[in-house]
């Protein structure tokens, strides 16, 4: 190497040594030297490779930016030389750096795949790029797996909360793109998922599926959000690098400041090809544009994979950053997705479009905030210790800020679990949540029973209609019965087995029976036989019986048998057998009660 060469390479190396931050001026200088001294290219490549290999992980990316800049501006032979070790350097770097840097490496890689203006091909040799690509796909898959492992176990309430958050985010996006049908459709899916989750019980697996699919459906939305987060970050970074590069700019007398890739992608007029075309404000933030014009170089399948892994890694990033900020509530178990499957069983997501109607403009985020505020407004408040709640004219007549600002929340938002069927509220303590779940189950059972007992308008025969489980008003209780009555028998939402039914049925099968309001009845209130339990008594038509009907000796009504699917037998409903005679259970009970 001649002295001149030695001097230039030494200069180059020492400037390269300064590249300890993302400095556009340094990279520009290095690029210029490389461009003007093509004959020493081999040395520059060695220096850069050495730099990438030896410098601390935090600075490796900037050296890569230098490589990127040189190759994009000077082109061959640098592109050829760098192609030799590109894969191993890239891989080594990728494995050493943090996730944020990784995504920057990936983005840089994507620009390498973009056809070069001069050559019409990708920046580096196909074989090197292909290896990197394979490596990235593997890495992302691993990533994804880790990510899945890290996903919290889904539960219904947590998934509901996820859905609420996604609804808010989607609504926010919709505000900017009011005509976006995809977003509308997503909103609809979300609201349907929410309803189904609230209505039905799902297995753990199903919930997990819901969770994953939610993540997938909304990976793109999250990417958009992530991009805006990143843009913000970059702005901050830019600020930082401006400060630290001050000295260099002074030395160079150059007015160019800022970091390499920032300027690259924020100014489309730069000679460098854009690194982050997808996040630049001028292009629509649609993921397909990321890979828009390289389809001629990679099989379509690979793009999809890259796209997906990219989405997943950005999702992962978003997830982690949100998590770090404590903004994520982690759904432990169950999740929303079988639901989604159910909804989507026969049709593609897009067909739900048809059902998109006026969705509630409810701002769920606001709800969450209000709930939190409500909760905090009532912490450490004990109603019995507040003098202004003393019952007197002044306290009642005057505005009491404590009541209007704090206490009132005890009636509403502090109990943030509001039943979507009846509006009843439940708090967040474990026992309240248990009650809430029992309450929802109760609605479910009751609704089934109401549906089951409602008289169908198309009932084929009168006999069938007569045997329907007819509902009627109960007699009131006598004073004594009422005094000893406990309303817990009505309002309990637990399921109970009615022993009465078992002992009175000839086929000894257990039947779960809930009483009038789904409550239980105890033997302690024996005098208070519920009409419901009477109606539930039945007698299987004896095989010896010639007639499938009998006449109730009390009301003279003819009772026809109905086929009971559960037992596979013909039965007489609301019937008891007394001394070989058959009676309406209700008639018999009334008569015996009145005559005692």
């Amino acid at each position, binding site marked *: 190497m001649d002295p001149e060469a030695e001097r230039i390479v030494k200069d180059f190396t020492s400037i390269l040594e300064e590249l300890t931050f993302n400095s556009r001026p340094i990279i520009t200088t290095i690029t210029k030297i490389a461009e003007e001294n093509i004959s020493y290219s081999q040395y520059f490549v060695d220096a850069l490779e050495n730099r990438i290999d030896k410098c601390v992980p935090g600075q490796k990316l900037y050296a890569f930016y230098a490589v990127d800049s040189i190759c994009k501006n000077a082109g061959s032979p640098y592109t050829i030389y760098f192609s030799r070790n590109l894969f191993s350097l890239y891989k080594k770097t990728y494995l050493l750096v943090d996730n944020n840097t990784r995504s920057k490496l990936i983005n840089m890689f994507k620009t390498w795949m973009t056809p070069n203006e001069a050559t019409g091909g990708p920046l580096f040799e196909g074989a090197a790029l292909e290896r990197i690509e394979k490596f990235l796909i593997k890495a992302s898959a691993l990533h994804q797996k880790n990510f899945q492992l890290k996903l919290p176990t889904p539960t219904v309430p947590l998934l509901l909360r996820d859905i609420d958050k996604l609804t808010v985010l989607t609504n926010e996006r919709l505000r900017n793109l009011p005509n976006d049908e995809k977003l509308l459709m997503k909103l609809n899916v979300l609201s349907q998922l929410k309803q189904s989750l609230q209505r039905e019980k799902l297995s753990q697996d199903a919930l997990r599926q819901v969770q994953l699919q939610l993540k997938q459906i909304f990976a793109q939305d999250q990417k958009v959000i992530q991009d805006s987060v990143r843009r913000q970050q970059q702005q901050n970074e830019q600020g930082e690098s401006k400060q630290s590069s001050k000295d260099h700019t002074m030395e160079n007398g150059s007015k160019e400041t800022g970091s390499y890739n920032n300027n690259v992608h924020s100014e489309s007029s730069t000679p460098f090809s854009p690194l982050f075309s997808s996040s630049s404000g001028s292009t629509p933030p649609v993921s397909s544009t990321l890979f828009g014009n390289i389809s001629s170089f990679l099989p379509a399948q690979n793009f999809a994979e890259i796209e997906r892994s990219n989405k997943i890694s950005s999702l992962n990033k978003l997830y982690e950053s949100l998590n770090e900020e404590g903004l994520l509530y982690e759904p432990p178990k169950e999740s929303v997705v079988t639901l989604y499957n159910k909804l989507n069983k026969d049709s593609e997501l897009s067909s739900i479009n048809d059902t998109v109607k006026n969705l*509630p403009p*409810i*701002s769920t985020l606001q709800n969450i905030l209000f709930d939190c505020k409500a909760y905090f407004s009532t912490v450490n408040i004990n*109603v*019995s210790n507040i003098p202004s*709640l003393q*019952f*007197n*004219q002044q*306290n*009642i*007549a005057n505005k*009491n800020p404590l*009541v*209007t600002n704090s*206490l009132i929340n005890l*009636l*509403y938002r502090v109990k943030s679990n*509001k*039943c*979507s*069927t*009846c*509006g*009843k*509220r439940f708090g967040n303590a474990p026992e309240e949540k248990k009650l809430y779940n029992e309450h929802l189950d109760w609605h479910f059972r*009751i*609704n089934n*029973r109401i549906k089951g*007992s*409602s008289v169908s308008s198309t009932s084929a025969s009168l006999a069938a209609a007569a045997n329907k*489980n007819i*509902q*009627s*008003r*109960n*007699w*009131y*209780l*006598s*004073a*004594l019965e*009422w*005094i000893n*009555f406990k*309303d817990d028998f*009505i309002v309990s939402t637990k399921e109970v087995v009615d022993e009465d039914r078992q002992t009175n049925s000839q086929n000894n099968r257990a039947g779960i029976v*809930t009483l*009038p*309001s*789904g409550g239980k009845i105890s033997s302690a209130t024996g005098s208070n036989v*519920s*009409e*419901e339990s009477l*109606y539930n008594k039945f007698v299987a038509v004896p095989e010896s019986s010639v007639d499938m009907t009998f006449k109730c000796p*009390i*009301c003279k009504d003819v009772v026809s048998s109905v086929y009971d699917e559960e037992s596979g037998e013909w039965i007489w409903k609301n019937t008891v057998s007394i001394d070989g005679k058959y009676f309406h259970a209700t*008639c018999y009970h*009334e008569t015996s009660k009145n*005559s005692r």
Partner: protein
Amino acid sequence: MSLLPGINEATEPLELVNDSNEVHSLAIPIGSQWKVDLPSDFKLAITIKSGIAEVLGTELANDTEYHFQNWKFTVFAVEDVELSWKCTQSLQPKIESNNTASQIYNLHFALEKVRNSSFYGPKVLIIGERNSGKTSLCRILSSYTIKFKSYQPLLINLDPNESIFSPPGCLTATPISDLLDPQSPSWGQSMTSGATALHSKQPYVENFGMEKISSNKQRYMSNIEQLASAVNKRITSDALVQRSGCIIDSPSLDQYDDNLDDLEQIIQRLNVNMVVIICDDDGLYQKVNNRVKPIIGDLMIRLPKLSGVIETDDVYKRSLQRSAIREYFYGNIQTVLSPFTAGVDYNELTIWAPRDLTYDTSAGKDEALELLPVTLEASTLQHAIIAITYADKNANKEEVSKASIMGFGLITEVNEKRQKMRILLPVPGRFPHNAAILTSSRYLE
């Protein structure tokens, strides 16, 4: 209660799928209300889209359609509310601010403080002028009480013109153990034999059987005495009810004796320890205050006429009473009940009637409580509501007048020739072997 015409009003679902029905949206700002002055033949459906809305203290579920008919009520916005509504006829919603809500909240939390610091809940009597919002206040306070904790306040209705879990003409006591039905002017369902969408309630029922308490004040006070006896025993044996306390609705002040003796009796019989008077008339307030203060001390407060009150007339009240009778037998849209028509021979029936002293001026004070035997004839019994007692058919009149009420029957047909009647009963089966008491309610199916 004179004749209540009801032209074959079977319970049928709201036919809201009418081409002329548009879905309207409506925003109610926080603290304001929509007074739904719904004409009796209109059917209205409301769906809360966002925010917190309540009907007389009962919070409505969001995105659930509620149906209203034959009722005037108020939708109050606890927070900014957006809702959608449709109606069978054109309706112009008017939104106005509610300036008494804050006092009701103050009142609720004052009662809450009592429940919180003692095993003996407040026994608060609500009195006031006609159409001042007494019943609404009771309903709101009951709802807030169960909203706050799983209390079971005892709602006591002393106004026979109101129908709360019962047909009109009754005095009732009902533990409010779960949500009230925001769609129901009679607050919800009493127990039925089957499933109801909300938990039904179990009232204790005294039958006064007349419209004006002045028709037989002695009978009214005797009803109260019996009711109070049952209530006080229930409270003693039911710790939750005891702690939750009583909320007592009462007839308007103009119906009491001029010296307010009956008010004092009510306070004492039911161990009332707090009184809320809704009254804009200073003179009346002063008069009541002078009478009540010596009994309960300073524990009487005054509220202005409630903001949500909708001016109504007797025609409306009659139609409410008529629907309460219909609902007793037939249920409502959500809970369709099947009553049973029993054929009853004259000799299976004993019917008594209370004395109406408005006409029966000859009766002395001692005789006022006496029941009179009713001659079985079409002119007195056709379309009449009778109260079926727990007393045996052959029991003497003292026993009958002390007996609890089992339920009501509607005499749909009197056949004097064949000495037979057809009586509509809530419960299928024979007419009970029990004595009945004629009420002044008439219902034409």
